């Protein structure tokens, strides 16, 4: 597929197979590791360069990667751990899987360099059950990397030792939340834990731990090899930095993952890189960054897809998983489906989420199925507001589609109530 932009993370993408270690090396892979770790360049320099590059976390919250590493206190105890978060259970999101299936060594090298920056000696690659194939690929390639001397004891003959183990999850959305993830790895119930202490001070087994998204980590070798200025220049906007893997699904011609300059306009992503809307489909709305973002309406079809610009319109880039809905989609139905997901996946720790989400699900279900009442709407609005006071970000995320549904598609909701049923039901054949 001809792209007019330079590919970074996907440069070794093959139509039908995983790039090998040799192919990765040919493209400049492991040069950064050789230069920085092999060459004994100070870990602080790694942090400085990554901070300067403006790399923001790709896990959803957009936290500056360099700053997170720098938060591990110099005086803190060893061993220190790195966790690569490939839980990726946010509906619509599949970019981390793509990365693993395209160029696993890019992730491995990134993990080694990130760990080097705060003297981490062991990493857990946390992966969900339906990604067993990714886990298998990674385990195979880890062995190759060890054989080549890029992992293990005394990497490239230096004092730095580092290795990665794959940790398989039992499968729950909440495991992707950083603090719950740490509990999961330690074999405890994966409930989130509020800081302080921050994981960078007391994480796994009370030792400093950094949690990063897989895509965040994959960017690191490229930044170190080509410099922060280069990385910034990749962006389509002034304020952004780097490329972004957008995962597009739903009513487009060619769903899939594409790597584009961060800040590429939504219109371009859909029209140019996904072959436009599916035949017969018209853009009605999308969720721009996974299930816990707000519906984005045609009004913003041209929006640059980066952290800043989406924030400006009260939305979020999240995981850049773009779920596209067309004129035949009942957005109330879609929201109900999302709420089914969130209610099922609530960890059960705090009241607003554990009980509030099933409450919302019940209200949405009643509206969708013709039992709706006017008073459900203010009740839903109030609930959306109140679940913001939950223990972690899951429930506030779950409220995003609902509140935006009411903000932008209240008429559609009312129509369900007045017509005592779903207006799309008759025509819907999706």
């Amino acid at each position, binding site marked *: 597929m001809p792209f007019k932009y330079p590919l970074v993370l996907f440069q070794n993408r093959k139509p039908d197979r995983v790039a090998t270690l040799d192919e990765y090396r040919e493209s400049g892979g492991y040069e950064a590791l050789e230069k920085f770790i092999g060459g004994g360049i100070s870990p602080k320099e790694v942090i400085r360069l990554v901070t300067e590059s403006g790399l923001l976390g790709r896990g959803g919250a957009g936290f500056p990667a360099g700053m997170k590493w720098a938060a591990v206190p110099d005086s803190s105890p060893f061993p220190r751990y790195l966790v690569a978060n490939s839980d990726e259970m946010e509906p619509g999101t599949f970019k981390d899987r793509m990365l693993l299936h395209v160029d696993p060594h890019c992730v491995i090298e990134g993990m080694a360099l990130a760990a080097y920056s705060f003297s981490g000696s062991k990493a857990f690659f946390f992966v969900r059950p339906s990604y067993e194939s990714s886990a298998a690929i990674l385990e195979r390639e880890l062995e190759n990397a060890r054989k080549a001397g890029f992992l293990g004891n005394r990497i490239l003959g230096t004092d730095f030792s580092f290795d990665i183990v794959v940790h398989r999850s039992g499968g729950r959305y909440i495991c992707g939340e950083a603090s719950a993830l740490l509990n999961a790895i330690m074999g405890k*119930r994966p409930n989130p834990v509020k800081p302080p202490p921050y994981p960078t001070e007391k994480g796994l087994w009370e030792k400093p731990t950094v949690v990063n998204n897989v895509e965040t980590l994959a960017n690191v070798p490229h930044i170190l090899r080509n410099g922060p200025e280069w990385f910034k220049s990749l962006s389509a906007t002034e304020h952004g930095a780097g490329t972004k893997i957008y995962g597009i699904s739903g009513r487009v011609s060619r*769903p899939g993952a594409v790597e584009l300059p961060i800040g590429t306009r939504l219109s371009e992503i859909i029209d140019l890189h996904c072959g436009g809307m599916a035949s017969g489909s018209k853009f009605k709305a999308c*969720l721009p960054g996974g299930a816990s973002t707000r519906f984005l309406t045609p009004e913003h079809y041209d929006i640059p897809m980066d952290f800043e610009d989406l924030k400006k319109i009260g939305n979020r880039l999240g995981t850049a998983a773009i779920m596209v809905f067309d004129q035949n989609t009942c957005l109330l139905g879609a929201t109900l489906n999302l709420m089914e997901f969130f209610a*099922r996946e609530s960890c059960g720790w705090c009241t607003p989420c554990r009980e509030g989400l099933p409450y919302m699900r019940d209200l949405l279900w009643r509206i969708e199925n013709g039992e709706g009442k006017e008073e459900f709407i203010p009740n839903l609005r109030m609930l959306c507001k109140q679940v913001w006071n939950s223990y972690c970000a899951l429930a506030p995320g779950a409220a995003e589609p609902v509140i935006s549904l009411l903000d932008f598609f209240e008429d559609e909701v009312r129509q369900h109530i007045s017509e005592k049923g779903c207006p799309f039901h008759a025509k819907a054949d999706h």
Partner: protein
Amino acid sequence: MLPDELKFKLREMIAGAESPREKAIDVMFAIQELQGWMSDEAMVEAAELLGMTPLELEELATFYDYIYRSPVGRYVIKVCDSTVCWLQGHQRVIDYISSRLSIPMGGTSADGLFTLLPVCCIGYCDRAPAMVVNNRVFGNLTPEKIDRVLTQLAEKADFSGSE
């Protein structure tokens, strides 16, 4: 009773961890691979290997979606019911499998081969509607494709890896 061979393997796996509990999921997966599900007896034995009480292991087993505490068929078909699959007709997939195997959602086929369950987003939204069978994912499902997959699975006793 777990076979000695498996116990030996599990003990080794546990010994390599930072703390035994870390391997709780791996241990349960390994047992499920052999026995399909976590029976009470298997729970007690696994807990002992992990230095946990059965209750402590149960706290984990019942938390996760991919640990089965009641018997399942040899193949657990989990059809994704999250947003994109919903949009792309997951209900038709469920109905089709349901009628083909004559089982309701949650049921196990008479021959003990298949169990049908819903699952939340499996991260193959680009290939919706999709399902995961044991460890393997199948996307862009159509009746024909489902037929093919189910026939193959029924014929083949053993398989692993991904599509």
